[in-house]
């Protein structure tokens, strides 16, 4: 072990506070409350997720070997994580051999600094960007802006978010919370060159984006991208996209800077046969996305002649150190779990605070930051399990949520002297339920609740944080006159 590990015994560090977009401003229940009251948001997201669920189900149903593919995806990822250091070293060597330059970033601040210096060295004060979760995670655009470098998002949804001075709310379609009418208004207001007679037809809106970005693409000197996959064996990077903005950024500029989380590496080229089948069907519900680019270092005379790969940790090694949580690193960012999640469908992505929303965000964000910095997220789920069924690499998100809840409770207990009310209740219940005599007495006492019941035999709205949360929208049944165990004893006695 190198000396730098001194001072952090046991575990690698979480993503540090202060830089990036992994932490929200308010707890999930509070953020969700305002989202739930936004009728347009509710309708937009319900419409989009319903559409995509149908498309996904149709194309997944076409493949008789879907379950075997999922299992292979899971095993490939687990294998890779178990040999992550070896594969990263192999990747680095392969990229370097083909004329690329590999950089390592411990955290968001370091990655931002590396990218800024690389852009500066080109003399350019503008970069075109391909949609990338890693650069959103580290807040690269904000950092570049502060350093006097304009970052132009070229993915349609990212452009909508950027022009709308908005935040992304979905992994795949960051502007999923906007409908066509709102997008038209944003374009007319912010784009500058949007035609005055722009309609809200999706094809017209796409055409406006094409015109708006065309000159940028053709004149850009530097591009920043993420990566979907990096093949250790050959050093081949891959970006999976639809619009062609990715191809523009990966092909036309002189310099390409790719920022990639260390977990994106895959062992061999042939392994892409698994992921290229799983990803498009799970994300956009297509058999294959319109464009997938693969490149290896620098190809003389074709594409960028300078290529930099930034390998980002930013809390990932911390996730790797948790045997019950590390499968979150297996995520291929398809968004299928968001699209099937009943919580996401109603609250939208902003309520999660982090750039990673939805079920995968609820397990990934708290692990990247340390659970106490996103303590409400593991509870932002009814544990219905739809995410696990939809995940193309079989990440058991519900079990992981339960694990993180325990981590939060135990961490809270370690940090504070006074136990939370909930903790007292749970311990008391454990004491009561740990013994049948105590339970029998308590269950009988429950009959006192009958005093609260109204004319219809049920209990209506009650004050108080716990019961009040329930009775705000639901009646409680009045407790019965007799518990089951009392009934049982009675009928046994009669025998």
């Amino acid at each position, binding site marked *: *072990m190198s000396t730098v590990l001194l001072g952090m015994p046991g575990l690698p560090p979480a993503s540090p506070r202060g830089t990036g977009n992994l932490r929200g401003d308010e707890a999930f229940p509070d953020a969700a409350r305002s989202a739930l009251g936004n009728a347009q948001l509710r309708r937009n997201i319900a419409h989009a997720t319903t559409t995509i669920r149908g498309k996904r189900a149709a194309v997944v149903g076409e493949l008789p070997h879907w379950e*075997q593919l999922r299992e292979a995806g899971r095993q490939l990822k687990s294998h890779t994580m178990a040999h992550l250091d070896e594969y990263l070293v192999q990747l680095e060597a392969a990229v370097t051999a083909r004329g690329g330059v590999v950089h*390592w970033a411990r955290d968001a601040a370091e990655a931002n600094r590396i990218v800024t210096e690389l852009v500066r060295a080109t003399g350019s004060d503008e970069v075109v960007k391909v949609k990338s979760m890693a650069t959103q995670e580290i807040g690269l655009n904000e950092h570049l802006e502060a350093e006097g470098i304009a970052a132009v998002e070229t993915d349609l949804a990212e452009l909508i978010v950027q022009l709308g001075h908005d935040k992304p709310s979905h992994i795949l379609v960051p502007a999923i919370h906007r409908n066509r009418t709102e997008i038209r208004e944003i374009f007319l207001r912010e784009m500058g060159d949007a035609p005055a007679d722009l309609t809200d037809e999706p094809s017209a809106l796409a055409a406006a984006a094409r015109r708006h970005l065309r000159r940028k693409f053709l004149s850009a000197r530097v591009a920043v991208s993420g990566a979907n996959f990096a093949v250790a064996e050959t050093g081949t990077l891959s970006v999976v996209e*639809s619009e062609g903005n990715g191809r523009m950024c990966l092909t036309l500029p002189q310099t390409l800077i790719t920022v990639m989380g260390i977990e994106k590496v895959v062992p061999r080229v042939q392994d892409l046969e698994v992921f290229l089948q799983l990803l498009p069907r799970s994300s956009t519900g297509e058999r294959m996305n*319109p464009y997938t680019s693969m490149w290896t270092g620098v190809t003389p005379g074709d594409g960028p002649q300078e290529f930099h790969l930034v390998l980002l940790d930013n809390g990932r090694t911390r996730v790797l150190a948790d045997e019950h949580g590390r499968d979150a690193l297996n995520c291929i960012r398809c968004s299928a779990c968001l699209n099937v999640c009943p919580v996401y469908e109603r609250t939208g992505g902003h309520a999660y605070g982090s750039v990673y929303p939805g079920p995968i965000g609820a397990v990934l964000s708290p692990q990247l930051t340390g659970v106490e910095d996103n303590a409400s997220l593991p509870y932002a789920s009814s544990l219905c399990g739809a995410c696990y069924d939809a995940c193309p690499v079989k990440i058991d998100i519900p079990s992981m949520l339960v694990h993180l809840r325990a981590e939060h409770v135990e961490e809270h207990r370690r940090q504070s002297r006074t136990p939370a009310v909930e903790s007292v209740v749970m311990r008391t219940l454990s004491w009561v339920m740990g013994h049948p005599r105590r339970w029998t007495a308590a269950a009988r006492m429950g009959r006192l609740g009958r005093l609260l019941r109204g004319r219809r035999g049920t209990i209506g709205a009650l004050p108080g944080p716990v019961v009040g949360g329930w009775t705000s929208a639901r009646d409680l049944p009045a407790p019965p006159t007799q518990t089951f165990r009392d009934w049982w004893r009675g009928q046994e006695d009669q025998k």
Partner: protein
Amino acid sequence: MSSPDAGSAREEVLGRIRQAHTAAAPQPWPYDDIDRGYREPERATALTGEALVELLVDRLVDYKAVVHRCAADAVGETVAARLAGRGARRVVVPVGLDPSWRTAEVEWLTDEPALTVDQLDGADAVVTGSAVTVALTGTIVLDAGPDQGRRALTLVPDHHVCVVREEDVVHGVGEALTRLDTGRPLTWISGPSATSDIELSRVEGVHGPRLLDVVLVGS
């Protein structure tokens, strides 16, 4: 705090990975033990011959590519008809394109010396060959070979006429990967450029070519 020293960042990240593996030993999972159970059903359902080509046509059309089937000696006239049909006059070609494919009465812009981006932007169309095509997904793969040229050629012009030889058609993604060399830049194309970013409904026509004509040549 992290120091800006690049070398130490590399050592530190790799050290953290080993630290994580020490803290929670990963389940050993040798590469060769990965269950490739999907391959057998893939092989078992793979089509060949005319059925394979029909599957490809179905998948291409489904994603809004326009397909024209022709014999090997009719590529030139088929390409010419496609260009004429879209009114193309200035047409980009890679240097290695089969001369018999470029019989149309248009202005041919050969990428030698390399065309500028503005020249590409001023062209109406591009004609290329292709490396491998996946029938199951309707995906054409370009590998920057002599009949395809560098990546920018098939990206900037708005109309791509792509010639696919039936002998280059495979059933699935895995088979395509075995035929490809990732040392070359690869572009996998499934239909014209499209987006699902507005209400998660797919619409065609964004930054890449908005028209994709596929000329499918019988073997």
